């Protein structure tokens, strides 16, 4: 519960406002600069020469458009598959972890599921690459999908299990008591109640997969590019304003996702 007490209101602390504004500036100025300059008419990335949509046009019909379109297509396909599969696995994992009663290896299992979030991404990337090499798996589209599914699981798992923990056992018991089989109690009662958590888990996994660079760069096959690796490749040859246009569009995708997630949790009246 949130208890507002006059003596401990953080807003009364010295410099609260200043620090808050400073943090917001540091966080959002780079994003703001990129967004504003993506509408720049100039070829330069630092000199403002007026409003224009030329770099957005450049992304879609310019000389590099084919490369970016393919990379974007790859990214979205990978993100959708990885988020879907990891959400299914995470949902089953959460069901097992929280609904199967207490079992000996539960703390260990929880650790194993969430560990990948704590492990430095570069370590995961190298490990995944070595793994694929050692089993003789050809690097390509499939390796990216497998790697993404793997590292997306903990991200999907966290919101789902948090949601599941909030669902009291009595709902399932009531369903069983009212003659539902275990399967029906799951599909008719538990699953709909977990819905908001599952959607949040999916969206989080989707975003994490969409903007992953390090692991993708290690496990992708030659010639297969996702949006982040394509952007990195383009930036190596100098930053052009079209990169800013792409970044701004990616930012928009994230904003849309977060907004969806917000409205789902807001419209959820089950609590």
């Amino acid at each position, binding site marked *: 519960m949130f208890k507002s007490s006059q003596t401990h209101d953080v807003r009364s602390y010295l410099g609260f406002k200043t620090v808050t504004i400073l943090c917001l500036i540091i966080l959002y100025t780079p994003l703001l600069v990129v967004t504003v300059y993506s509408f720049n008419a100039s070829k330069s990335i630092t000199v403002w020469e007026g409003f224009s949509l030329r770099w957005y046009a450049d992304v879609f019909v310019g000389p590099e458009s084919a490369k970016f379109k393919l990379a974007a297509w790859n990214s979205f396909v990978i993100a959708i598959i990885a988020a879907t599969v990891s959400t299914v696995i995470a949902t089953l994992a959460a069901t097992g972890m929280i609904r199967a009663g207490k079992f000996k290896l539960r703390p260990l299992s929880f650790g194993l599921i969430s560990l990948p979030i704590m492990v430095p991404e570069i370590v995961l990337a190298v490990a995944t690459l070595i793994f694929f090499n050692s089993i003789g798996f050809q690097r390509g589209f499939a390796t990216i999908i497998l790697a993404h599914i793997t590292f997306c699981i903990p991200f999907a798992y966290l919101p789902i299990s948090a949601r599941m923990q909030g669902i*009291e056992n*009595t*709902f399932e*018991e*009531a*369903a*069983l*008591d*009212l*003659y*539902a*089989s*275990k399967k*029906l*109690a799951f599909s*008719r*009662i538990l699953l*709909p*109640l977990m*819905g908001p958590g599952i959607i949040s888990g999916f969206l989080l996994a989707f975003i994490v997969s969409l903007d992953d660079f390090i692991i993708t760069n290690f496990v992708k096959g030659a010639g297969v590019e996702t949006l982040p690796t394509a952007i990195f490749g383009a930036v190596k040859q100098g930053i052009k304003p079209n990169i800013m246009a792409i970044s701004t569009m990616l930012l928009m995708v994230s904003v849309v996702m977060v907004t969806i997630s917000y409205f789902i949790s807001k419209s959820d*009246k*089950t*609590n």
Partner: protein
Amino acid sequence: MNKDDVAIQVKQAVKRYGTFTALKEISLTIHDNEFFTLLGPSGCGKTTLLRMIAGFEDVTEGSIQLFGQEIESLPPNKRPVNTVFQNYALFPHMTILENVGFGLEMKGTSKSEAQAKAMEMLELVQLSQFAKRKPSQLSGGQQQRVALARALAPQPKVLLLDEPLSALDLKLRKAMQLELKHLQRETGITFIFVTHDQEEALTMSDRIAVMSAGELQQLGSPREIYETPKNRFVADFIGETNLLEVTVDTIANDRATCHLGGGHQLTCNAVDGIGVGANVHMSLRPERLFISDTATESESLSGTVVENIFAGTDITTIVDLAEGPRVTVRTSNSDRGNKRIFEAGSQVFVNMEHGAARLMAN
């Protein structure tokens, strides 16, 4: 359905969680068409026993039979019993109508028929106008009635109620007590009601099983357990009572003469198993005592009034017996015409009828 038929037979049921024993060899018979209450303080095992009947907990030892059939091997969804949960457990994502129809639908009734029957049930609890709403849009009392309708809709043989009224305010609780009692009579379904509220148990039940620390203390009608409590726990838990430590001096003609601190003497009915010299407790119900300035009855104790407490329907008078324990006397406000209220400090006699005092083993 007949009251003589046995609905549920619990035979030496034991429930252990690891080394902790929640239920110690409980045996009891619940008749068909009966309003049966499991009463006891929290942690006495009453909810555990209810959950064992529902099928949410397995039986460590012993057996439970439902209409002569062993039910241990049946999962909860195969038992013809339904539960009203303490927190109601209404499905938040379904409408009231879908909630009430859920059990029938799961039993294989077609959706349209289930909804029609659910509507009937909602009419029975006077909530048909809320059929299309979600549970969160209803008040606590309304949710309670929906939970009741949902559990009754599949026409169970036995209805289990796990402290269903504990979340309601006093007025609503009283109204629901009567409604439940009527519903039980109308439907003829056996109700097993779990509560820690002794007043609720006395008001509603045909029979009450008083439990404490995983053991059955006494089983009987509300009148029996109130008027002839078997032991100190039951006497103390059911209603209010004065429990006085006494020593039995003599027993003659089924009457035991005892003394308590301060040299006070009292005679009461002898009890099997309590012999001369036994240090036991005597229970004196406050409403069976009355105060006057003379010893009007054969059984009388002298003392000083400490305080009078006004409590609406009655007045509670606290009396310190001379050099003895303190007793509480309750005088109904409607009796005030012929009973005096004595000011604090008055020297009085606490009188009681023959048989008001009861001896009980510890």
